[in-house]
């Protein structure tokens, strides 16, 4: 088949894939008022009363210490685990204990790490899984 005929078909296929993915993403968007941390549900206020505060960049970013949160939620031998932070939109990032020691969770449920690129800022976190 000629390229002139193939291109529009390929373009339509791409539009179909993009549209179907958009519908799937919209349908599977998670909405919850709690965070699932190490297998237990907490509200953001409960989490903030649990762990000690932390701030970076002269208080430009402030929240609670992620490493302390994990200890307070019962993680033992924390350096032997990996931690997966999952956002409501499906975005997730896995980090090490060293990273958690330089990380904070904001009141808007966003992760910020002082030693990692901004790609590790997971917004609207709904789960912190210990692996």
């Amino acid at each position, binding site marked *: 088949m000629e390229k002139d005929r193939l291109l529009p078909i390929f373009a339509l296929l791409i539009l179909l894939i993009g549209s179907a993915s958009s519908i799937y993403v919209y349908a599977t968007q998670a909405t919850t008022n709690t965070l699932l941390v190490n297998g237990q549900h907490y509200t953001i206020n409960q989490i903030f009363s649990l762990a000690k505060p932390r701030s970076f960049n002269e208080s430009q970013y402030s929240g609670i210490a992620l490493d302390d949160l994990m200890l307070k939620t019962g993680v033992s031998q924390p350096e032997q685990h990996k931690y997966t932070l999952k956002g409501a939109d499906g975005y997730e990032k896995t980090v090490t204990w060293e990273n958690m020691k330089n990380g904070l969770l904001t009141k808007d449920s966003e992760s910020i790490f002082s030693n*990692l690129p901004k790609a590790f800022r997971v917004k609207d976190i709904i789960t912190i899984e210990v692996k």
Partner: protein
Amino acid sequence: MKNMKFIAGIIVFGSLWGFAECIIGSLMRDVNLPAGAIMTGIFAIGLMTFSRVSFRQPGMQIGMGLVAGALRLFNPFGGCFICSAIAIMAEGLLFDLIWTGFSLDLKKPQTLTIQASLGICSAYMVYVGGYIVTQILTPLFSSAGFYIENLIVFIPQMLASGLLAALIGVVTVPAVFTLKKLDITVKDRVYYPVTMGLSALCWIIVITSTILSV
């Protein structure tokens, strides 16, 4: 001489692209617009298509991506600048591979349908491809490392986010072909001063804005 013109073209188009990403892209991110898809759909695809149909030389867009990505590294504000720089470089490479691989260097005049289809295919594949590459390379360059499962669960979102870039590409590519019909030629006498001056201006503005933002 032709080679020098080609290199000057890479520098000026790459600088314009990098300038747009740093200055216009940052402004878009500040007002919570989907800057990535808009920047790719308009500026990346627009400049790469224009340079490709003007010079018809494979490899040019890889160079443009490297210049634009380097400029983005000089402006560490507005979103993840390392991810953006990697994505820009990957987009240049992907555009070049797609156009060379699918032999899209069209010689005869094309219908609007073909131009629009080119816009959809290029914009979508370049944007989604760049997104995937940056999701792999950014963690690899960090202390956290890369985990394939983080990428797999996010594939539907990446495929969905490319739709906007594709829809913008429908307009951008035919607009570039229309602009090309105007057949604007720059005389050799002014070509180098204009390209070098414009490139220098882009770099000066970006570096100045970086210094002022610190």
